[in-house]
């Protein structure tokens, strides 16, 4: 399945893009996605971020679906 992933702030600096589509095995969870992304982008390994699924902070075991909107969010710094 194909999933759209959004990157923000320092995470977008590390990946060099603001969004991309990634192919994943069906049944993949957020933990597995994180491993795939950290392999693809070595620079992500030293950064702090949260994975958000459909705008909610995801647990590491959440099973991903093709309809989900995934985002990698670095620490917030509004205001």
């Amino acid at each position: 399945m194909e999933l759209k992933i959004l990157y923000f702030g320092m995470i977008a600096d590390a990946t060099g893009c603001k969004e991309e589509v990634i192919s994943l095995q069906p049944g993949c969870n957020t933990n597995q996605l994180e491993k795939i992304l950290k392999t693809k982008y070595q620079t992500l390994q030293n950064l702090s971020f949260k994975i958000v699924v459909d705008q909610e902070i995801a647990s590491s075991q959440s099973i991903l679906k093709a309809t989900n909107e995934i985002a990698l969010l670095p620490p917030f710094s509004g205001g």
Partner: protein
Amino acid sequence: MKKRKTVFIEGPITPSFIANSIEKHQTKTTIGAHNIFLGQVRADEIQGKIVQAIDYSAYTEMAENKFHEIREKTFSNYDLTCMHIYHSLGTVKAGEICLFVFVSAPHRKVTFEALEFLVEEIKKEVPVFGKEIFEDQTHVWKVNK
């Protein structure tokens, strides 16, 4: 569902925008107390370089939903007459305003409590990201304390 209020403003929030906002409340005569928080961009020194501006970006859809949730939570916790939140996107220079939070109520006490709650929730819950830009155009990413 109620119409969502616009929170994001491109560029700095100007003093005249803030003055206009205050003026609009002069017809609401049940209000006896306003309280305002203004966030201003600091010219911090980081590793020998001075911050010239912050470039704000956001996960806009999620941020707008979070602002809405925070508004609803604040209205249910505190007896306010009205509440306004504005946050900048894009470039805001040092010394300019990037956050404007405005609460009003019949009496003062609740405005102090509600304003502190609101500003802390915004800092903690809303996915906004500040890129601190130096004079030589290099940058670091801001992290809220």
